[in-house]
Each structure stands twice: as C-alpha cells, then as structure tokens.
C-alpha cells in the first residue's frame, strides 16, 4: 500500500517522461531513411551478431550548417532580451502588490493570474489584431497624427518580444511577489532610521533580498522562451530564427526525425545550466 504511493508516479513518469528521452537520444543517433518511421534501427541482428551503429552524423550536421548555431544563438538572445523586459515591467508590479493592504494583495494577485487561466493561444492571437498593418495600434497612431503611414509591427522580432513578455509576465511577477512579500517592513524602516534615502534603501535592502525572486522569475521566463514555437510562428517573420521553430520544421516539414531529435537533445543540454540555476534559486530539493 505504502509502496504503491511512490511506485505509481515513478512508473508513470518513468515511462512517459524519462523513457521518451532515451528514445529521443537513440533516434538522434540513427540514420535518417525514407521509411515508416523515417529512421534506421540502431541495433541490428545479422548472423546471430548484434551490431550497434552509433551515428553522430546528425550532430555533425548541426555543427556544419550555420542555420542551427544561428538559431540557438538567436533564440537565446530573444529569450534574454524578453526576460529583461519582463523583469523591468514585472518588478514594479510585484512591488506594488507586495506593499498593498493584505486584502487588496489577493485581488491584485488574482488580476495577475486571471489572464493565465484564459487561453495562451488566444492571448497571443490578440496581438495580431493589435499589431497588424491596419490593426488597432496603427489606427490609433494614425488617428493621433503621430505617424503618416502604418508601421510594420507584425512579423518582426519586436512583435516576438512583445508576445513573450505578455505571455510570461505572470511567471515573473509571482516569484518576485513571493520574495518581496516575505520582506519584513521593519527592515525598510530600520534602513530609513539609519539614514538611507528611499532609493538607497531600495538598492541596499530591497533589491538584494529579492534576488531569489529575480533569479527564479527570470529563469521561469527564459527557459520556456528559448524553446518557444507558437509565439514566433504567429508574431514573428521569416527572418525571426528560433530553435523551437527549427525543430518543428525539421519534424513536420522535412520529416527528418533524427535531425529533429538531435536538435532537441542539444536544446536540453543547453538548457541544463539555466535549469540548474532555477533549482538552486528555488531551494534545491523540490
């Protein structure tokens, strides 16, 4: 009975989360083929002898074609810039929520989480209507007389940044709020009492003490943003390189499963570092 409690989730997650990575690794090492499924088996039985052919060709291919390296770098850059913007927008919001009266904190937090409960896809879609050539924003700017001709906003990297910031803002605010609300108000009073001006208090007390929230929030935005597919697909242009889209295209358009697998494996390896940082920020064990 007691055993079963741990065994059931171990089995489920082992089969449907861990085992897929083994298969992924295996296929990233096999040779592509025009077959169903489109790759050659790794191990073969011939004349009673098992031969295992490890094929690093897919990885070598990733290194040779600059498209992949550029996509990884571009994804990391877009994710990093978006994370920074999210932090700049999220911090004041989290700060105001944490300093609000206890009764209002709940309401404000609810307002942050509420959009998350509505569809992510629909919220990204909303930006198409806002950003497109004859969209809301262009119409507004024209009406205000700030511009003479519509700006090209959609299918740009800017739009991708906007989409990521908009989608992941709650993931930044919640951990920031968690560290800021734990901050004892007496510490701020003590700093003021000892002669610190508000800005100095912020820089010497509030900011350092909210660091765990900053790290956790940034990683929670950065990590999924690197592998994002939907946002660049809807808001990005043909020159917006992101590795999630590359993987998607390798799989769905080129039907090259081994290369897609290799792209995925490299993505996991690359993300291992920020994931480790996140786990440390969240305090290890869990």
């Amino acid at each position, binding site marked *: 009975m007691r055993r*079963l*409690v*741990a065994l*059931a*989730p*171990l089995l*489920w*997650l082992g089969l*449907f*989360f*861990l085992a*897929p990575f083994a*298969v*992924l690794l295996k*296929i990233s090492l096999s040779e592509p083929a025009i077959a169903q499924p489109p790759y050659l088996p790794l191990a073969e039985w011939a004349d009673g002898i098992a031969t295992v052919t490890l094929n690093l060709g897919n990885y070598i291919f990733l290194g040779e074609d600059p498209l992949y390296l550029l996509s990884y770098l571009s994804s990391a850059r877009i994710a990093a810039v978006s994370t920074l913007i999210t932090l700049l*927008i999220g911090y*004041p*919001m989290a*700060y*105001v929520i944490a300093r609000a009266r206890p009764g209002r904190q709940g309401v404000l937090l609810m*307002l942050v989480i*509420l*959009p*998350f*409960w*509505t*569809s*992510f*896809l*629909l*919220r990204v*879609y*909303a*930006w198409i*209507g*806002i950003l*497109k050539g*004859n*969209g*809301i924003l262009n*119409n507004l700017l024209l009406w205000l007389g700030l511009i003479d001709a519509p700006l090209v906003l959609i299918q740009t990297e800017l739009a991708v940044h906007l989409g990521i910031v*908009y989608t992941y*803002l709650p993931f930044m605010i919640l951990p920031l709020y968690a560290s800021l609300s734990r901050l004892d108000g007496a510490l701020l009073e003590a700093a003021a009492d000892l002669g610190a001006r508000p800005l100095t208090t912020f820089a010497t007390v509030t900011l350092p003490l909210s660091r765990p929230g900053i790290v956790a929030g940034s990683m929670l935005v950065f*990590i*999924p943003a*690197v*592998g994002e*597919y*939907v946002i660049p*697909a*809807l808001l990005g242009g043909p020159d917006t390189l992101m590795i999630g889209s590359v993987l998607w295209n390798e*799989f*769905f358009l080129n039907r090259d*499963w081994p290369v897609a*697998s290799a792209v*995925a494996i490299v*993505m*996991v390896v690359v993300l291992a570092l920020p*994931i480790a940082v996140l786990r440390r920020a969240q305090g290890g064990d*869990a």
Partner: protein
Amino acid sequence: MIRLAATLGFAFLYAPILSLVVYSFNESRLVTVWGGFSTRWYGALLADEQILDAALISLQVAVASATIATVIGTLASLALARHGRFRGRFLLGGMVTAPLVMPEVVVGLSLLLLFVAMEQAVGWPAGRGFVTIVIAHATFGAAFAAVVIQARIGALDRATEEAAADLGAGPVRVFLDVTLPGLAPALVSAWLLAFTLSLDDVVIASFVTGPGASTLPMVIFSKVRLGVSPEVNALATLVIAVVSLATGLAAWQTMRTRR
C-alpha cells in the same frame, strides 16, 4: 511613480484581452475596422462544426488528463513529503520538476517518438489520437499538480494526522478523515490547473495526435496562422466570460466562507 508603472503594467495585461472582446461584436469581417455592433460571429461560431467537434474533444481530453494528473501528482507529493528517504526519491523529485521547465517542442517530440517505438515493440498504443494526447497532457499536468499539492502538504499540520491515529484511526482512515479534507482545496486547484493547461496546449498535442483527433487549440492555431478571424474573437470572448464567471464565483465563495 512606481504605482503608475504598476498601473500601466496591469493595463498592458488587460488591453489585448479587452480588444478581443470589443472586436468580437464587430459587424465587419476586417476585425479591426469597426463596422457596427453585431453578434453575427457568435452565430457563425456556433454553426462551425469543426470548432464544435474540436471543442468537445478538447474538453474530454482535459477532463481525463486533469483527473489522471491530479491522482499522480497527489501520490508523488505524498511520497516526496511523507515517505522520508526511499529508493527512487531523487529520481521522482527530478521527474516531477523537470516537465515544468522542459520546452514543449522537446516534450512533444520525445513522447511521439516513444509512442511510435512502443507501437512497434508491443503494439500499444495502436495509432495516435485521443489516448496519446491524454497521456501526454496527464504527464506534464501531473508535474504542475504536484507543485500545487506539495505546497499544501507542507502547510498541513502533521500533528492532526497523528491525533487521528492516536484517537484510533488506522492509516486509511487517517488519510480519508484528515489528510484528504486538508488537501481538498489544493486538489481542486491542481485539477483546474491541469485542466487549463490541457485546454491550452497546442504544441504537444500537435506532435502526439493522429488523424481525426484535432483539439480546439490546434484548430484555432491553424485558423489564426492565416490571419485574424472574427469567429476566433467570439470564441475568445466566450472563454474569457467563462473564466471570469468561474473566478468571480470562486472569490465570492471564499469571501462567504470566511465570514
């Protein structure tokens, strides 16, 4: 200053949602050009069989996967929080957190490859569709459910369980009488979270689905890739209305019980 920044932040969160609602009542097909008030797109939406079918599939997938996810998440949380050190603890802890941060494209691709390999090896699952989407959603849903439930288990007073044992309740009774009622609010949130995530997912479902099983997000995604669609605005407005209503009810309920 900082309050102004925060207010602008909230405006940023809600302006796009508001624009969806406003333009869902627009007569014009050109979504962003106002052509007068109309509810014709709601009519069109309710007549769109493709969307309705997909919505039904999505709801079924979400209910099934959220239920499985909550059960697995609960068991995993209990094992991690209450069983001390056991073999596989580290592994379980890792497997419960990793799906939270794994890029969707990776999860989707690797699961699909597993399903294909399994079908080759043992003949199950035969083909892909409803079942494989449910399994995929249940798996990452379980990780999110576990986060919610673990937080609650940590806040439970262990002494109440000991008190029940002390008063003569066996392990099963202790679980039913004390642990489960204590966890109930977290179980509801965990289920709702897994349900929402399932309803929201387009990437993983696209990988692991098969012919005939298109979820609502997949249909919406293929529609909006071609540009804005007033029907989708109407659908979004309905979703927003349902979510707001549910949240309002929940808030009202909490306020009432607190009195």
